[in-house]
């Protein structure tokens, strides 16, 4: 396997971008990445998108993206794994470069959620249709059941859940590309509208339009495109039972743990070496469960991390410095790539007010559905 580097990144603002189409979102992010590296040709494009067919009626977006980038002819394909589509696209691009199949690969993620589709119904297609969606459950409902199981097992409180959202907004307010650039206090989170008990509106990530793209090449060529490449040293993918009811412990994300173990092994580091992490906080409880499954905190201790400041900027291991899915926004297929961009910028010292001092190793974790798929990447400053 060849060593692989990320050499450039591009990302649209995240939010309700009514004036911008799916194809233009992709092109805006991709062009920023290509320009940053001074590149005008590619060997392959991998684009993550969960549900372009349901959101805007457009399948077959591999060629659509290549064509609109002015690169019809280039190998291009879509990768889908629900909300983990972007992270899985990176996995595919990593393998493409590591294997020697291609030298210059663009990995992108895009989702256009605000074009009239019923976002709750579209997202519900990532659940098991015959045993979960049929009965009337939604994604907030599934994560609410995870939250209640966590409260039951570990004594997690509503205040501790709310502290995660408060932290995300505090970080997001420092991110010019975030959907929500405002801070919220504990009280407003805890009195926001109940969506699925115990989860309230301010525990939930929003409906977002956006795209993100990174450029990959073999490490040995990286200096041709940037003087500060970032090395991709670990990649782990795992699956778990599709339906939440079929997981041994509904309060534990076993696919996240398994994907992390694989990524740590490849990178030859452990969770104690991680300086900054972007994890899949589609709901506040998800961040708590993810940091436990990743080993960043002990199992059952995730509830203390946000209230104690351990995972905030300036803490032991800052998590979701971008604002996370909660405040930065969650254009589902783009999320996994946007997470990688945050860590890329952190490791290059380009994160501005959100900068984590002297970060060498960073981790990203992106998951699909209620945790049935998960992908973890580990990056290292060169």
């Amino acid at each position, binding site marked *: 396997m060849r060593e692989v580097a990320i050499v450039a990144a591009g990302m649209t603002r995240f939010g309700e971008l009514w004036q911008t189409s799916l194809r233009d979102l992709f092109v805006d992010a991709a062009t920023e990445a290509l320009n940053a590296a001074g590149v005008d040709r590619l060997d392959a494009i991998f684009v993550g998108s969960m549900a372009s067919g349901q959101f805007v009626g457009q399948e077959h977006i591999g060629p659509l993206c290549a064509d609109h980038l002015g690169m019809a002819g280039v190998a291009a394909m879509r990768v889908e794994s629900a909300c983990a589509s972007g992270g899985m696209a990176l996995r595919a691009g990593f393998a493409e470069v590591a294997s020697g199949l291609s030298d210059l690969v663009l990995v992108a993620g895009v989702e256009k959620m605000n074009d009239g589709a019923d976002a709750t119904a579209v997202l519900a297609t990532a659940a098991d249709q015959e045993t979960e969606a049929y009965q009337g459950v939604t994604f907030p409902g599934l994560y609410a*059941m995870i939250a209640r199981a966590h409260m039951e097992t570990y004594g997690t409180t509503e205040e501790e859940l709310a502290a995660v959202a408060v932290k995300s907004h505090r970080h997001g307010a420092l991110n010019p590309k975030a959907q929500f650039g405002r801070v919220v206090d504990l009280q407003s989170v805890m009195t926001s509208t109940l969506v699925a008990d115990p989860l309230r509106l301010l525990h939930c990530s929003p409906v977002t339009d956006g795209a993100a793209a990174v450029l990959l090449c073999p490490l040995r060529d990286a200096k041709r495109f940037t003087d500060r490449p970032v090395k991709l040293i670990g990649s782990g993918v795992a699956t778990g039972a599709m339906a939440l009811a079929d997981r041994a412990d509904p309060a534990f994300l076993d696919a996240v743990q398994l994907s992390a173990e694989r990524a740590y092994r490849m990178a030859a580091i452990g969770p104690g070496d991680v300086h900054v992490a972007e994890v899949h906080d589609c709901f506040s409880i998800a961040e708590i469960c993810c940091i436990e499954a990743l080993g960043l905190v002990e199992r059952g201790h995730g509830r203390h991390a946000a209230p104690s400041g351990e995972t905030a900027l300036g803490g032991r291991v800052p998590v979701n410095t971008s604002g996370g899915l909660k405040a930065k926004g969650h254009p589902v297929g783009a999320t996994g790539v946007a997470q990688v961009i945050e860590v890329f910028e952190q490791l290059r010292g380009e994160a501005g007010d959100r900068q984590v001092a002297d970060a060498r190793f960073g981790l990203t974790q992106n998951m699909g559905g209620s945790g049935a798929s998960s992908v973890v990447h580990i990056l290292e400053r060169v």
Partner: protein
Amino acid sequence: MPSPRYWREIPGRYRLEAGRCHGCGKVVYPTRRICPACRGAEFEPVLLSRRGRVVTSTVLRVSPDDFVMESPYAMAIVETPERVRLMVQVTDCEPSTVQPGMEVTLEFRLIRKEGQSGILCYGHKAVPVVAADTARSR
């Protein structure tokens, strides 16, 4: 929902038919081709007990379109004595009273009237044991 897709799920949804794996004894519901525990492919049909215990639950206050008329409603993962877990609505009670540990029965009910076609979709919902007793004594 196209009729064949609905019909083929009827044994599981109407009669709670499950399969007991010959290889490891795990009861699998709904039935599937391969046992997720041991990869065995031979099953003996069993009917689930129509009772269980709430493992975890929620109250859905923002529901899918087909369920708007029932909102807010409780949903739970219920474990039967066969150690099978089902995702079900919990009905005939105040939704906020549903909590982990609660004993329930599983009863045949209308799940929803589907979208434009108006097809009636049936299955099982959970009813708290206390509420069921109270209803019978009335």
